[in-house]
């Protein structure tokens, strides 16, 4: 009897495993790696690609960049990816419909990049576009989201000369954003962006452009909450990064004090930035204390005149660099805060909330009106550590 029970238990277990097992088994090579997604306005609706919608309109063209699986062999002068695209209104419906163009399942777990054309963003809010990507369980939080002023599809059609798969190449463009002041990439991937949208913060996204087989990141697209309002240039991006201390290294140029018309370059390698909110008798202001350490990176002009060995001249240079950095930050403040009235990714709001919670409780409902009027006082202190020359 005991033996029979034992056998029955084993059988039940076996049947459970056999029936419930393998339900989501799909071999790696039977999946289509979607590496990049481009979202454009649907201007040319091709009959074959698309489908009949019961309601709505053909609003978007979604293009997917899919990896070609060639068994190990190097392809010559050929892209490692191919593009499938579709038009419609619901992202999900378009992507499901694209299975009609694909022999394997479309698989988004290694999606790298999402590129959105600003033509779409001028008509539709960002949250609406990102909604499918934030809901779907296959999407990762670390997907990079870029905005382009042209069409998005050509960018994912671009095959990098380095023979990387296009999506990986595009995602890795922003990898060194800590060293490049011109790229806004800290807290701008899909996970953070969705978080900012949920927090009702203003979003900024990196801008990507492609002209004649040159793809480049630089500057950023600025959103008021999730409504696209325009671009800011690299100089403003650099200022915002230095203001918030989101860079690890940077290059700052000034006009040489002794030989005007030539540049001297400061290479930052360590900084200590604290953005602090203060509340004094009912008025709020922010102070930004920046301490920077770095090297002389380059001297254009006569080095006998621009003598880096001279300690006094170094002091002059330090002050000049500090002035330049301050000017840069104030430029950013002018562009982003005063003109666009944007608290980029809610940094100032979160600082105030963290440091002065009672004040935040009072002002959070009028924050959008209040924010552009809050003054920011910047003090910069630069120390030059190495000069890279000898006598």
């Amino acid at each position: 009897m005991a033996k029979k029970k034992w056998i029955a238990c084993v059988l039940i277990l076996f049947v459970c495993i056999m029936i419930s097992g393998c339900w989501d088994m799909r071999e790696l090579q039977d999946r289509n790696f979607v590496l990049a997604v481009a979202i454009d306005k649907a201007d040319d609706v091709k009959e074959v690609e698309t489908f009949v919608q019961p309601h709505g309109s053909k609003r978007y063209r979604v293009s997917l960049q899919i990896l070609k699986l060639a068994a190990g062999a190097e392809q010559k002068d050929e892209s490692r990816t191919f593009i499938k695209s579709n038009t419609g209104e619901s992202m999900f419906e378009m992507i499901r419909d694209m299975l009609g163009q694909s022999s394997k399942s479309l698989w988004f777990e290694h999606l790298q990049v999402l590129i959105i054309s600003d033509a779409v963003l001028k008509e539709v809010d960002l949250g609406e576009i990102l909604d499918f990507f934030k809901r779907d369980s296959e999407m990762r939080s670390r997907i990079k989201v870029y905005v382009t002023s042209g069409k998005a599809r050509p960018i994912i059609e671009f095959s990098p000369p380095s023979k990387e798969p296009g999506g990986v190449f595009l995602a890795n463009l922003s990898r060194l954003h800590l060293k490049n002041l011109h790229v806004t990439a800290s807290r701008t991937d899909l996970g953070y962006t969705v978080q900012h949208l949920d927090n009702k913060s203003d979003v900024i996204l990196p801008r990507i452009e492609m002209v004649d087989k040159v793809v480049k990141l630089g500057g950023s697209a600025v959103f008021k909450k999730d409504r696209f309002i325009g671009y800011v240039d690299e100089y403003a991006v650099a200022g915002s990064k230095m203001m918030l201390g989101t860079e690890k290294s940077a290059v700052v140029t000034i006009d040489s004090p002794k030989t005007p018309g030539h540049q001297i370059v400061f290479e930052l390698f360590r900084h200590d930035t604290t953005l602090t909110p203060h509340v004094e008798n009912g008025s709020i202001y922010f102070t930004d204390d920046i301490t920077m350490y770095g090297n002389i990176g380059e001297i254009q002009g006569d080095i006998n005149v621009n003598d880096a060995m001279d300690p006094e001249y170094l002091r002059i240079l330090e002050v000049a660099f500090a002035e330049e950095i301050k000017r840069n930050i104030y430029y950013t403040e002018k562009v982003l805060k005063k003109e666009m009235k944007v608290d980029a990714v809610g940094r100032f709001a979160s600082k105030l909330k963290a440091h002065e919670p009672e004040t935040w409780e009072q002002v959070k409902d009028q924050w959008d009106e209040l924010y552009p009027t809050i003054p920011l006082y910047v003090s910069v202190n630069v120390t030059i550590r190495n000069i890279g020359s000898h006598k």
Partner: protein
Amino acid sequence: MKRLKCSKIRKLSADRPEASVQLAKKELNKLQQMTSQSISVSDEIEQIVADLRRVAAPSSEPFVFTKKLKENRELLGAIFKDCGDIEFRNFDAGGKKALIVYLEGMADTSNLERNVIKPLMSQTGPDNPNTGNLAEIFATMKSISEHILGASSVSVLTKASAAIDAVMTGNALLLMDGLSEGLSISAVKYVKRDIGEANNEHILRGPNEAFNEGLPDNIVLVRRRSRDTNLKVQILKIGERTKTSVAVLYVANLVKPGLVQEVERRLGLIKTDKILASAKIEEFIVDHPWSPFPQLQTTERPDKVLAALYEGRVGIIVDGTPATLLVPCTYNVMMQSPDDYTIQPVISSLIRLTRNAAAFIAIYLPAIYVSVVSYHPGMLPTTMAISIAELRARTPFPSFLEAFMMEVLLEVFQEAIVRLPLRLSGAATMLGAFVVGTTVVQAGLINPLLVVVVAITAISSYSMPSYPFNLALRWLRIPMLMLASILGLYGVIIGILAVTIHACSLRSFGESYIGGLFDIDLLSDWKDGIVRLPAKLLKERPKEFGAKDLTRIGEEDG
């Protein structure tokens, strides 16, 4: 088809009735009956003969020695009937008839000639000092052995069973006319292997003597390494027919109280006719015979045995097997090699950590590969996922089948190389390398990454210091693979849990198999567990084995 009709051809039985099948069957039946009858008759005859042969003797004894040598000889002859290698040597000692019985090839004849036969025969010689009181001397076996024999080890036997036993172990049995007792003279000398190098547990620095098949030699190998009177050897006999000697070794003032008794109790419970290898004893005395894990440590190295004895463990040496058993045994013990103590502590710690990692890899790596490739490729870094997908683009089979085929292939190769004669195993190795390394991959049956995975797995399992443990890892790989292929990583985790729980629930003579790794009470044991501290710091014996005296170094350690 048209049936051929031919009047000429008929059945043979129609022509000759005595050739019919029925008749033949009848005859055969008769024959069978007769044979069975004859068998029963012969059984009866045997019974009668046995009854006739029976002498008045207690039920446990085959017979009782009488005072007449002739009768004794006949009784022994009946026992040793048809044993061609038994020698009966009659001679004359001090005017009495004497008989020496021994097994040819097991007894040292030159020793017998020199120390037994010659002194006994010379008792009648003219220049013998004992001539006056010969009768006195020959009154008992004891006095004979005390006054005449030059053999070192003798014992007086009154029971026939003991005498037969003595002959069968290779001793010589001396019987005299007029004495109803025998004298067993120990002069065993049989053919055996010399002490050789440890083949299976060779180490780089340190002793490399290994046990051979002779029990006395093996005991000597352990004894020789320690002049400690507390090292005790108890010899038992196991096996109804073979009566194999089994020695239980322990250090009396260290071993955990009750452990030796428990070992002897379990050994006493063994009911079998023959013991050919110590593995059989192992199977009888382990706590969980269904577990794949080895629950006794086996070794062929005397130094390992001695080290274990001084940790308060018990050794079991079985006659006829070099593999000696050590109890209790834990995972920690399995993962240690004597080489760990001959190299620098830091290096040996690193090697031990590597070994533990290798044990994990040896079980779970193929399962993890299968589950990641067919269920969760999203867990891989993108570039790696892409390169794996490109490698697998040509392979026709699902990853589970692929891995399973590869496993089968690996097992077959291992088995082939173990079983083949030495001269052929090189060829098999080469073939394996060709087949697996190149052809299978080029044929597109299996992707190169899997070959790497399986190779790493195999090498990891080879790195185990104990061969039975390596086998356990090999065996566990297959169920893990199944789980991974059915339930993905979820299944692998279930498998890891199951294996860990099983290993934690195993008990080896009361000690937890793997629990010592996590038991904070055994903190001092961790110094010589997954890492090894320098010898100066290893002042305590392992608490785990419950030695009576825990300090290795100090005043109180006798």
